[in-house]
């Protein structure tokens, strides 16, 4: 019963049912109604998928909207991506904006632009240049965040956590309005090595904690070392 798996190709404005394919290519505007399993999905233009997607490789140039859960190996988007359910990935690269209505889980994520998540994000390496808004827990082995604009996370946990502000000179916009300043707000940050800049948090706990300029922290707990920049405001620091 071995059937050869075929390709799907949509050019212009088109609709298709889901199914199992080798390669799915969309040039233009494509709407897919059913679940898709494929080896490779490439979209130049707009993709709308009202079902789950499983693919070894996904590349979206343009916009993508997927209402079902997504399982993917290599996942790259240049443009805007909106997924309403859980995302699993090996490697995720986003240039632009990624919004997810649930949580995401994977190995390696690189975000150049904006990341917005309604639930938890778990991965081994997370690198963000830009904006990050996670409403749940951000759990990663290594977190490197270079902030542009207002960032937010309920909780951050991991081994190495480095939060920096991109560039040192204040931008013109920041001079006009404090709201647009690059700043991270979190409730709790916990990790082994923590380096923070321009962060507002209630509790920071870690083995080696370095508080850089512009921080506002209620309570720091550290095991080995602790350093704080004089330009930051730490209400209480305790060695345990």
């Amino acid at each position, binding site marked *: 019963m071995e059937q050869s798996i075929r390709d799907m190709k949509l050019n212009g404005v088109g609709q298709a049912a889901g199914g199992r394919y080798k390669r799915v290519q969309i040039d233009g505007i494509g709407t897919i109604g059913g679940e898709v399993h494929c080896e490779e999905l490439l979209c130049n233009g707009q993709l709308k998928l009202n079902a789950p997607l499983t693919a070894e490789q996904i590349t979206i140039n343009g916009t993508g909207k997927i209402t079902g859960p997504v399982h993917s190996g290599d996942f790259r988007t240049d443009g805007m991506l909106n997924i309403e359910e859980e995302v699993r990935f090996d490697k995720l690269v986003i240039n632009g904006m990624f919004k997810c209505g649930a949580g995401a889980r994977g190995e390696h994520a690189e975000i150049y632009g904006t990341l917005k998540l309604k639930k938890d994000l*778990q*991965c*081994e390496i997370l690198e963000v240049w830009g904006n990050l808004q996670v409403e749940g827990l951000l*759990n*990663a*082995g290594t977190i490197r965040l270079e902030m542009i604009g207002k960032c937010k996370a309920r909780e951050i*946990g*991991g*081994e*190495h956590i480095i939060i920096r502000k991109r560039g040192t000179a204040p931008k013109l916009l920041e001079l006009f309005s404090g709201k647009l300043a690059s700043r991270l707000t979190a*409730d*709790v940050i*916990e*990790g*082994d090595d923590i380096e923070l800049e321009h962060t507002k948090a*209630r*509790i920071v*706990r*870690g*083995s080696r904690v370095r508080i850089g300029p512009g921080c506002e922290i209620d*309570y720091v707990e550290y*095991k080995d070392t602790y350093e704080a920049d004089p330009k930051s405001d730490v209400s209480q620091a305790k060695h*345990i």
Partner: protein
Amino acid sequence: MNDELISKKELLDLTGISYGQLYRWKRKSLIPEEWFIRKSSFTGQETFFPKDKILSRIDKILNMKDGLSLDELADVFSPSLKEISLTAEQLLERNIVTSIALDVYLKASRHEGSFMFEKILSVFVLERLLQSGDISMEEGRLLVQTLTEHYPAFAGRDCELLLIRKMGVAAFILMSKNSEIYFDRGVKVVVRLSMAQVTEELKLKIGEGGE
């Protein structure tokens, strides 16, 4: 669910692990999501854990992590069934089950060939209950039938095995984890087993003998 809770901070003090390790184990699913209980305390929101469960789990992880990689460890703790198959001879040779339990099983299920993990688990549970003297061989057959027919329905989710007796008549019950159940006074609960726990023990036992 009247489990005693322990705060994250106390847990780290007690076990000597770091925040990084705890978060890493969570990522690798060595510690299940449900054990992270968020509660408000006087310092704001804090995370708590069921004390006994988390302490024994961390103890196991710390003791085993030298020999196994984290991914292999995750396999041990997950309630889903590993892809493994052993022959009857191997089962006896590695002391996973005794020939008595195996005989009862073979009589009850007319099984041939090698044993998949799910089957080994049935024999393992049977072995355990026979050894402890909780069931007779006749009841063992009933157990095998119950497990063969209904255990796959739980498909990787944790469940509990219950053996009750009323006026000497035995009945086996498989039910989803943490559900409440009450009986009339004449009923005696003989055995209550968590299948996830048995699965874990069995995986360890198979792991020790093999490779």
